[in-house]
């Protein structure tokens, strides 16, 4: 399951989506809004997306993970809109028979989606706001 949503992310629900009776391991990653970035005090972030393509790229990341790793299921959710400090902007959950594959696939998914999924964040800090420029797919 992959999803782009404006509602808060429920990590526990994502765990339930992926885990099956054959799994001995579930890895969950949450990306959360930090109160500081590059020395600035962050007030909040606003995420926007090229939504149709973002969903397609997110599904591609999921499919790649299922192909590359010995895992049973994977899910990823990215949130859009205004997020306050501490809120989760992204969640990735992976279930697998054994833990090494669960960790590896979870990390692969978050690393890859940060480079390939067309989503952008605008950072509001004391005194202004700025679009955060991210990594480029060609960088790796």
């Amino acid at each position, binding site marked *: 399951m992959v999803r782009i949503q404006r509602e808060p992310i429920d990590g526990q629900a994502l765990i339930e989506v992926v885990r099956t009776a054959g799994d001995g391991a579930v890895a969950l990653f949450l*990306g959360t809004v930090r109160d500081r970035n590059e020395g600035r005090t962050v007030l909040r972030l606003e995420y926007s997306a*090229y939504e149709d*393509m973002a969903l*397609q790229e997110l599904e591609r990341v999921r499919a790649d993970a299922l192909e590359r790793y010995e895992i049973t299921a994977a899910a990823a959710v*990215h949130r859009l809109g205004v997020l306050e400090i501490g809120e989760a902007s992204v969640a990735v959950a992976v279930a697998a028979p054994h833990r090494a594959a669960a960790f590896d696939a979870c990390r692969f998914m978050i690393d890859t989606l940060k480079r390939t999924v*067309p*989503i952008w*964040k605008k950072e509001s800090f004391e005194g202004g706001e700025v679009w955060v*420029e991210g990594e*480029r797919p060609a960088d790796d």
Partner: protein
Amino acid sequence: MTVEVLFFASLADSTGAPRDRIEIPDGADVAALWSRLVERYPALETTGFRPLVACDMEYAAWDASLDGVREVAFLPPVSGG
């Protein structure tokens, strides 16, 4: 031919609009389309990065032909996650 053009994040700030519709010659590539856009929106030249391009929702190179392409999106380096 006519393509639908989408701008995202800081690029939409530069153009002042999230989308436009542009007439381009048959056989034009992404780079040719970009030149037309820069004429129309000079602020695009001052963005400080070379945009990523997606043709019908697939990442594409700057010399990719636009034949048969319906929608071209210009994307700043992504910063989700």
